[in-house]
């Protein structure tokens, strides 16, 4: 069914609608519900931060958008075009438009190829330019990420972890994409190196008018790079808002728990953390999703309804969406967590 597909407004780049990705397990009829109904929109030039703890489904969401996995259900629209089919059926021209940078710069670069050869692969695949033009483009890409041009003759193991990640970024930009998915691009790096990479990413985003889907488990980082933030828990988005709004007014108990668990380095930062909620319980497995709200076993504010009925996403203020019974109508209780 492709009926009822609304046209995206002109500045819309990507829209994900009720996306689901289930993986089979050894037990028949039992699935890993890795992504379980995710919806969001990404405008041109935006940086959407997708935050959540390990196993919440961030990477699976990314891979499904990239076409590595075919969705179990739901739709992915890119520039108004349905790209929900897997990579095999995606036109080459579209593959050029969406690129990814992975977490581990150690394993994502082929160790037996030089940096120049690595950067040449996407150019060759997409038949960009002549041989000589490609050579020029490789030098240009290295300059773009401020690496010395003679790096093209080096092998990945001969350069540092931060520099390898710069190469991975250059490779993602080789085809002039409009959307770049960043899957924890700095989680494996020290903070002093992370700072440099993040700076570069944000500079490129401004200068090349890129749109980022920025995946991370680090809310402090998102505070500084994202225009909007979506918080994921157990395959679903539980809260989404503009960055200033989310940090000033976190409403979902899970967002509050995440924020209050972050170790910070100053009193000023401490003052921005919600103090009311303390981390308890374990992160459940997406094979055994609790009934009702997935977060209810860990939620100090849970009511009887929370274990019975799944809350729907509601817009509680303009552009601020929360999936929580406490913030909706029709549930007994004070309906307020502030």
């Amino acid at each position, binding site marked *: 069914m492709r009926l009822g597909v609304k046209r995206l407004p002109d500045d819309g780049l990507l829209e994900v609608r009720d996306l689901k990705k289930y993986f089979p397990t050894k037990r028949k009829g039992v699935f890993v519900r890795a992504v379980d109904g995710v919806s969001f929109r990404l405008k041109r030039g935006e940086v959407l931060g997708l935050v959540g703890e390990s196993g919440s489904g961030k990477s699976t969401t990314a891979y499904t958008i990239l076409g590595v996995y075919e969705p179990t259900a739901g739709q992915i629209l890119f520039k108004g075009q349905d790209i929900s089919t897997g990579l095999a059926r995606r036109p080459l021209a579209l593959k050029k438009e969406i690129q990814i940078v992975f977490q581990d710069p150690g394993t994502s670069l082929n160790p037996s190829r030089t940096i120049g050869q690595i950067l040449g692969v996407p150019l060759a695949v997409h038949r960009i330019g002549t041989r000589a033009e490609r050579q020029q483009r490789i030098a240009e890409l290295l300059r773009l990420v401020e690496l010395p041009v003679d790096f093209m003759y080096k092998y990945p193991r001969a350069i540092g972890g931060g520099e390898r990640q710069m190469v991975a970024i250059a490779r993602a930009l080789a085809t002039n994409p409009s959307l770049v998915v960043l899957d924890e691009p700095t989680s494996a790096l020290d903070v002093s190196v992370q700072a440099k990479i993040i700076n570069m990413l944000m500079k490129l985003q401004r200068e090349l008018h890129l749109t980022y889907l920025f995946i991370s488990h680090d809310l402090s980082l998102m505070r500084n790079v994202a225009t909007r933030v979506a918080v994921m828990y157990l395959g679903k988005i539980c809260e989404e808002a503009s960055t200033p709004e989310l940090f000033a007014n976190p409403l979902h108990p899970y967002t509050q728990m995440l924020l209050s*668990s972050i170790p910070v380095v100053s009193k000023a930062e401490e003052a921005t953390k919600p103090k009311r909620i303390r981390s308890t319980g374990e*992160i459940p497995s997406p094979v055994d999703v609790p009934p009702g709200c997935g977060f209810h076993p860990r939620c100090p504010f849970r009511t009887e309804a929370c274990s019975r009925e799944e809350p729907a996403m509601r817009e509680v203020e303009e552009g601020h969406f929360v999936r929580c019974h406490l913030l909706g109508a029709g549930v007994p209780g004070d309906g307020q967590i502030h």
Partner: protein
Amino acid sequence: MEDSTLVEIKNLTVWYRVYGGLLRVLDGVNLSVARGQKVGIVGETGCGKTTTVKAILRILPKNAVVPEGTIMFQGRNVLKMRGRELQELRGQGIAMVFQDPTAALNPVFTIGQQIMEVIKYARPGGKAKEWREMAVRALKEAALPDPERLMENYPFQLSGGMRQRVCIAMALATARTLLIADEPTTNLDVTIQDQVLRLVRRLVEEKGTSLILITHSLGVAREMTDLVYVMYAGTMVEVAQTDELFDNPLHPYTLGLLQSIPKLTGGGVTQGIAGRIPDYANPPPGCRFAPRCDQAMPICSERKPALFDAGGGHQVACWRFAAGGEAVA
């Protein structure tokens, strides 16, 4: 040595023999821990944090050499200990918790068997029934749910956070003077890290155990410790009471590190610290941070700075604080 001092490391130098040369990793480390004190060692990958604490426990790898230095624990030099003394040091003196709880636990034994083994090692004279009781009590103290059942579980049946709590329970199942935790939460999610850190703090405070906590994260050190050592390329570059360090950081490396951290208050991300950690086969003479330091002076690349006193026990290994200040080490 003062009575309240538990650990006193002086001028500890550790090298690793490798094919084709020598890695001069620890370059005269000084560190001291008082009884009941919680001390943090903060630094980035490869700066020598694990090497330092392995030296304290005398569990350095075979290719390590210790050409210089002393490590006093309760008034005795660990580097001179042998046989029984070492067994006592590890069985009763110091407990250790590692970064990876999966590697620390043996997959083929139950949690109960493993905790009882540790207790047996510490108190060889006891009875099996007592060991069991102590093991269950340790799990209870670590606020682990259903300790009796947990005793019969195998490590693979537990989540990462649970496993680390079991390791902590195990480390503190018998009385210890010092707990060394080497990045105990690096692999854990932030909400689970919070639980594990609160557990460590509660247990060491209740038992009066001293703590050395190793971490990459200045934030973790700030929330957990009384005293922080900032380590760079095998040297302690700054040490201060935790509040003082965060109110008044002095060493250019500490400043660079603090500025590199993305803040919850926003404000963007800085440039980080240019360059990389030096090659230990050929470390720079003088201050090891000098090649990356934007405030370096000629002397910095010639002579190694001592830890200069910046007042109130705050010490900085930086030539900029030599004038007027007094070298304390």
